């Protein structure tokens, strides 16, 4: 879904449903989860719901994961060294 919106353009729920060949309620559920996670935003024009990727949120979430992955990897490397020295 994120891939489908990655171009930055706005797509309607109907268009996304056709692309994924999934039932509309399934698509709606996925979109709702992504919306709650603040990864996409919704605009409503009459009966048509359109969705767009929030690029900034996505980058920010990726940066958080990468930073903490690096943190724990580095920390456990050091823990391993410390334990190797027979401490604590």
């Amino acid at each position, binding site marked *: *879904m*994120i891939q489908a919106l990655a171009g930055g353009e706005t797509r309607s729920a109907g268009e996304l449903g056709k692309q994924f060949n999934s039932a509309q309620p399934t698509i709606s559920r*996925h979109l709702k*989860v*992504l919306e*709650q*996670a*603040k*990864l996409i935003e919704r605009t409503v024009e009459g009966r048509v719901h359109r969705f767009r990727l929030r690029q900034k949120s*996505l980058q*920010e*979430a990726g*940066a*958080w*994961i990468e*930073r*903490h*992955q*690096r*943190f*724990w*990897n*580095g*920390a*456990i490397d*050091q*823990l*391993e*060294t*410390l*334990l*190797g020295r027979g*401490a*604590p």
Partner: protein
Amino acid sequence: MKPAERVELRRHLAAPPAQVFAAFASAEVVGQWLTPAPDVKLTVLELDFREGGCYRFAYDTPDGQRMLVGGVYRNIEAPTRLVFSWLIEPPDVHAGIESQVTVSISPSSQGSELLILHERFDRADANARHAEGWAGALEQLQLLLGKAGESP
């Protein structure tokens, strides 16, 4: 469908679970290893290792940046499990993002298997958690009181 907002690391360590657990349990030992790299200096400002107790760490990088992290020990089951919250303080780019670290240690034939699970709560989750008995707000208060009680 939902993007992974968690970091999961699994590592075998050549030490028994009690020894690995002890590495998390005192300021003296934590200060020796809980940093992302050897040149990032950790100063343990506070570490009250009991359920409901607070910790607060300062990380200083070689380029002069300082990151402050604090949290509350939510669950301590020596020597196998430890859960604590993790909140980076402003002005950091990731300040205010609620997250939780679960450390699981199990015995293995070579020593221990360590699993670190660091989960980030998105705003919707955080709101739900706050609604459930104000748990988040109480925790913030606890952190604040902990800070106020620090010696100058």
